[in-house]
């Protein structure tokens, strides 16, 4: 076997096997360097994978050489490749910039374990994405969850502990619900392989255990993905986590759960369940709409800048769910694109926040008056990513919002309602981004005795890379669009 065919496996095992080595790297900075190297290598692997599947083919890998329903199979298609790019990209970018901020927040002797947990989180998320086996997804979900509990518990405030405890309880309930659902499907089909499940579920699709399984899997994954109203753990966890961890998790953690949800709902349940449309139309779509409106509205009144952005993530997850619930090619494509673009925008925003947090400990918005005078570059990057989050033409965020609006209009006579919701919530996004910008640029500067300067170069450069990526993918969205198009085709092709 050549290297290319090993790529799906390498995607997971490079970060996973690096993690135990990182624990042993004690001298200063070495753990960071090792972790960053591993993350960069896996980012390179995901780029190679994306190139390999750009043409529309799927790369599969039989773990241990055993054929598919008996052994564990990995498969990487357009959708997985795009999500992999997001996951590994977020990890690589955040790790590149992490050192100054992490040095400030985590004691030196605990850092090797921290970076090791970070790599395990990356390996877990990548493992979920490449896996084509329902139970294997559970195992890697647990690796990534445990790792993210550890990472969030690194937050310096004591409230971080409470936030992470809540997250642990919610996350475990979500994962166990997923496990119950998988068990029920296994009971009725006798297989764990997703493709095999799909072909065998047809005979039993209308039996009660499968219907209940669909419910359990949807609720379990919705809990993990923080779909409204199961999002209560998210704002606290994101606010209290170390700043660089917020960058990493906000960009990719919940998206991976959504990815699994979409995969299950479109590939396993879709072809056989007559109620499938209803499931989306009656449950997920209203939740998505409510989530968009309520979370955007709440975000307008949040005081802490990290909490504000975390709450806004719940609304953005609503957009992704809304696109998926149209059950149309355009809708799914918009949804997949938004996974990518929101990661760019939110990752960039949290990076900028991390820059600010490096100099200012208090992140309440009214305390940040006039920061732009001392940190002009950071604030400019923040504005750029903010524009992308709102969806101003020329930024990446615009592409997916535009796709979403087109898909809404195509979705039927009530399409204008969805368009209205999207527009209203975009206006709300303008309001909450403006609150930050107003404070940063025009707020009265409080008396600060400490020397305030621009953020360290390492942080700043990476922040600007992320900000410019928002611009770049606003003007040249061809590659992610091709992957999303490919993904939507595959997902919808199963149904029709």
């Amino acid at each position: 076997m050549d290297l290319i065919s090993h790529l799906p496996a390498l995607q997971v095992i490079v970060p996973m096997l690096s993690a135990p080595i990182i624990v042993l790297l004690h001298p200063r900075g070495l753990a960071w360097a090792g972790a960053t190297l591993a993350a960069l290598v896996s980012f390179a692997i995901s780029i190679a994978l994306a190139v390999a599947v750009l043409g529309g083919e799927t790369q599969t890998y039989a773990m241990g050489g055993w054929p598919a329903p008996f052994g564990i199979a990995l498969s990487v298609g357009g959708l997985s490749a795009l999500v992999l790019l997001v996951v590994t990209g977020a990890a690589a970018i955040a790790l590149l910039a992490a050192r100054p901020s992490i040095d400030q927040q985590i004691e030196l002797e605990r850092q090797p374990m921290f970076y090791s947990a970070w790599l395990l989180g990356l390996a877990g998320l990548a493992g979920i994405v490449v896996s084509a086996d329902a139970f294997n997804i559970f195992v890697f979900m647990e690796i990534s969850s445990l790792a993210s509990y550890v990472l969030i518990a690194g937050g310096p405030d004591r409230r971080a502990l409470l936030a992470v405890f809540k997250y642990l309880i919610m996350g475990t309930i979500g994962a166990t619900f997923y496990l119950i659902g998988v068990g029920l499907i296994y009971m009725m089909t006798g297989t764990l392989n997703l493709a095999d499940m799909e072909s065998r579920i047809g005979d039993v699709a209308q039996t009660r255990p499968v219907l209940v399984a669909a419910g359990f899997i949807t609720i379990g994954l919705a809990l993990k993905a923080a779909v409204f109203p199961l999002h209560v753990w998210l704002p606290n966890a994101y606010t209290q986590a170390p700043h660089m961890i917020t960058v990493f998790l906000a960009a990719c953690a919940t998206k991976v759960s959504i990815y699994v949800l979409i995969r299950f709902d479109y590939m396993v349940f879709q072809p056989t369940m007559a109620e499938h449309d209803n499931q989306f139309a009656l449950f997920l779509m209203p939740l998505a709409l409510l989530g968009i409106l309520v979370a955007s509205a709440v975000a307008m009144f949040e005081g802490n800048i990290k909490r504000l952005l975390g709450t806004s993530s719940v609304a953005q997850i609503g957009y992704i769910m809304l696109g998926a619930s149209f059950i149309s090619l355009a809708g799914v494509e918009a949804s997949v694109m938004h996974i990518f673009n929101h990661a760019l925008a939110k990752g960039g925003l949290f990076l900028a926040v991390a820059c600010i947090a490096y100099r200012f400990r208090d992140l309440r918005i009214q305390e940040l008056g006039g920061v732009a005078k001392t940190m002009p570059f950071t604030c400019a990057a923040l504005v750029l990513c903010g524009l992308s989050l709102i969806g101003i033409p020329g930024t990446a965020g615009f592409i997916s919002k535009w796709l979403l609006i087109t898909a809404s209009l195509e979705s039927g006579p009530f399409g204008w309602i969805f368009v209205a919701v999207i527009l209203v919530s975009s206006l709300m996004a303008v309001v909450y981004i403006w609150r930050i910008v107003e404070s940063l640029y025009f707020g009265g500067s409080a008396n600060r005795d400490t020397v305030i300067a621009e953020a360290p170069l390492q942080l700043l450069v990476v922040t600007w890379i992320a900000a410019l990526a928002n611009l770049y993918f606003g003007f040249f969205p061809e590659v992610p669009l091709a992957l999303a198009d490919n993904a939507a085709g595959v997902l919808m092709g199963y149904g029709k």
Partner: protein
Amino acid sequence: MIFVFSLFLLSLLIIIAIAIVQAKNLFVSVMLLSIFSLLMATNFFILDAADVALTEAAVGAGITTVIFLSALALTAQRERKVVGGRTIALIAVGVLASLIIYATFEKPRLGDPNAPVHQHVAPWYLEKTPEYIDIPNIVTAVLSSYRGYDTLGEVFVVFTACIGVLFILGAKPASLRGERNVERAGLRHHLIPQVVGRLLVPFIVLFGLYVQFHGEYGPGGGFQAGAIIATGVILYALLEGEAAALRAIPRSVLLGLVVGGALLFGGVGVVCMFMGGAFLDYSVLQSDPVWGQQLGIVIIEAGVGMAVCGALLSIFHAFAAREIAQ
């Protein structure tokens, strides 16, 4: 007969679960939880799952209880009265219970040989294992070869938990060490438990090793062995004091076991890749694929045992060190 027995055990399970939730003393709850796990293990055994029963007894009833007790020693023993909020919880779980029971009536009956789970993938394992891997215990074959990747993931779950606990509780031993009073060093003043315990420790470790290396032929394997050996060392720590256990197996060795075990497992996979197979395809390790499979399974089971044993002991010591520091 066994059917009636299993009905009895299952009903007992429910009663104990209710008692656990009702008990206001957390110590009582934890001990009942241990009994709950033991009953669960008995149920698993009746349901023909010997490996799972062994694991549940060692991990669920043994290790979990120890970890709970060490956490209780650091926090509070009693639970405060809860006011309000019960009705909503009751309604929510009531709905959930009826939903699951609603689903049961179209499930295959217990032991139905025509159930899909006995028709599709499982017969292949039972039929092909003698040919491809040739070890008697199919559970070990599935665990370490057909679904070896899951097991690798599981080792890394344990690894994550281990470094997580070390990270959260702080890896450095507390500064107060060394000047503890001798009174608290284990059970030194209890002659009888100490004598009996000392006698048992080597046998427990021996049994652990038996479970480790007999896993291909009977119930057992790396996880169970790791948990049993860890129990033996924890018993030693309880008898002789935590410091003595740390002198016998220092923290660095434990960390080495965890890291080494995880890397050994992963390393075997990588070697398979270099030798031209897929990741974790042990067939390529030897010229005869069956021998290769068996060699691979022995090595990765050793890796699993090391990692699990090291991780559980590290977690135990992390809690115990806090206790002394307080």
